[in-house]
């Protein structure tokens, strides 16, 4: 392995934190979705790192599953955004206030 494992996992933790903070603080729906994608990517990075450390491809298979799920989630999520947008001209979470947040 060309770099120490802690750098890989550390990078993954940093990206995960950025994604989490983004998902919790941003109010633009599409950006929240992208932050969640970033979190999933951070998870993938640590799976790949651990997989490399163990010398087993289990982690790689897990990553494939995560990528599949991410694609499915994005399709449904953007469908929801579109259906919401059809009924109301906004994609700001703060404007989604019919039900209190």
């Amino acid at each position: 392995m060309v770099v120490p494992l802690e750098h890989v996992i550390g990078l993954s933790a940093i990206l995960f934190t950025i994604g989490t903070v983004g998902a919790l603080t941003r109010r633009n729906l599409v950006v929240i979705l992208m932050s969640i994608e970033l979190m999933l990517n951070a998870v993938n990075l640590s799976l790949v790192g651990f997989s490399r450390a163990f010398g087993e491809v289990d982690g790689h298979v897990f990553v494939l599953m995560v990528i599949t799920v991410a694609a499915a989630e994005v399709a449904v999520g953007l469908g929801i955004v579109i259906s919401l947008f059809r009924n109301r001209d906004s994609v700001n979470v703060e404007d989604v206030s019919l039900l209190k947040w």
Partner: protein
Amino acid sequence: MVTSTSLVNPSVLAPFGVVATGSLVVLLLEVLVGKRQSFLGRPVTREFVGTLLSGVSSIFLFIALIVAAQFFATMPGRIVFDPAHPMVAMDRLTAFATILVCIGSIFTCWLASTYLDELRIHHGEFYALLLLASSGMVLLVQSVDLVTLFMGIELMSIPIYALAGFARRDLRSNESALKYFLVGSFTSAILLYGMALLYGATGSTDFVQIRQAFDASNLLAIAGLGLLVVGFAFKVAAVPFHQWAPDVYEGAPTAVTSYMAVAVKVSAFVALLRIAIQAFGPMDARLSDLFWVLSAASIVVGNVMAVIQENVKRMLAYSSIANAGYILIGLAVGTEEAYAAVLFFLLVYLFMNVGAFAVVITLATGGKDRDRYEDYAGLSRTRPTLAALLTLFVVAQAGLPGTGGFIAKFILFSAALKQGFVWLPVIAILGSAVSFYYYLRLPVLMYTRDPEGAAPRMETSTGEGLVLCTCAVAVLLLGLFPAAGPGFLSHFRALEWVRETVALLG
């Protein structure tokens, strides 16, 4: 690493396969029948297609239920898909949970067919999505590997995101779907990070191997376990990860709400139970403390917040948060008896909660839910049977003796007391006392006030009637004869079943 596939047991996947196949059949059937003028000698109308698909879906779910019951009756231990890479297992816990999930889904099918007509959103995709979500739940409760666990959660959640937004022209439904989706996918990411860290700490995704390699002093292992529990806490809406639940429950079509409140919760709790037992073995003290905090917070917040609600669906949402708190007591206690009590609680919870929602659904008319408290004023005059049934279901949720709710809480609290947990049962009993106020508010409204506002729907469809009857009978039966009743009821030994289920887990 790569093993021969000659030893696999595909039969393990039978219930999942039946339900998943059902979704394909329903999808195709909708396309094929929807285009025709008449089918089986009847003119094809939207109502007819809806009823047909609802019937076909419940047939598939019923087959899955029978298969699971067969496993439950005959299964001595546990069989796994592939001994070298178990992935999914079939044991009594799986079979029990599969039965609950199937019952919940069948109820939803029956309730949906009239309700969707009333809301004018009757599309065949509803049943396909419902079956897909149910297949995800079945997979979730039989997962013994993090990968299948994750896939199960997602296969359960993704159709439900769409179902929550199924009333596409209704802004509240859109927003409900949106919130459920945002929280759900955020949760998935959290859960997944927990899984990745556990994989890093133990080198495996298989529960048994995780248990063998689990080292509670390892940072990765502890962080992974914590994130996993937080993820599940989101899924079951335990405080402080509950804020989404009332909004989502209120906005979603009520048939979907009842499905979310019941089936999702049952499968998530069973999966959590299996993780707690199988992957982390004898309950880790820290895990128990975590459950303790979640449980106490859920009971307090759920009950207090339910008091101030003006909408029945929101009230039921908070009450389901409180119920999640009660169930978490069992997980915090962590004895065999407590686990059995959890399963019994889930069984009762299924019937009394679906029953309450079924009444709300049966009242819906003119494209709208009747879910405000005022809508229930004087219901005993206009719909006396429904008023009586709703009274039964809320009384059961409050835990009055003679109903299943009482027995469930009783054995749960006594299991906790036996293990030396004093404060949790005390908090829970105080919480239940508070819950009397908001539960009994409904009967008081129904029986002491005059009807006001628009008249409710006056006829009950066959499906709704069936659900209401079944739930009422089950709630009473579980309350009066939890162990074994007289006559032919002697075959009905719910308490014994849940104890056997847990005893075989190990």
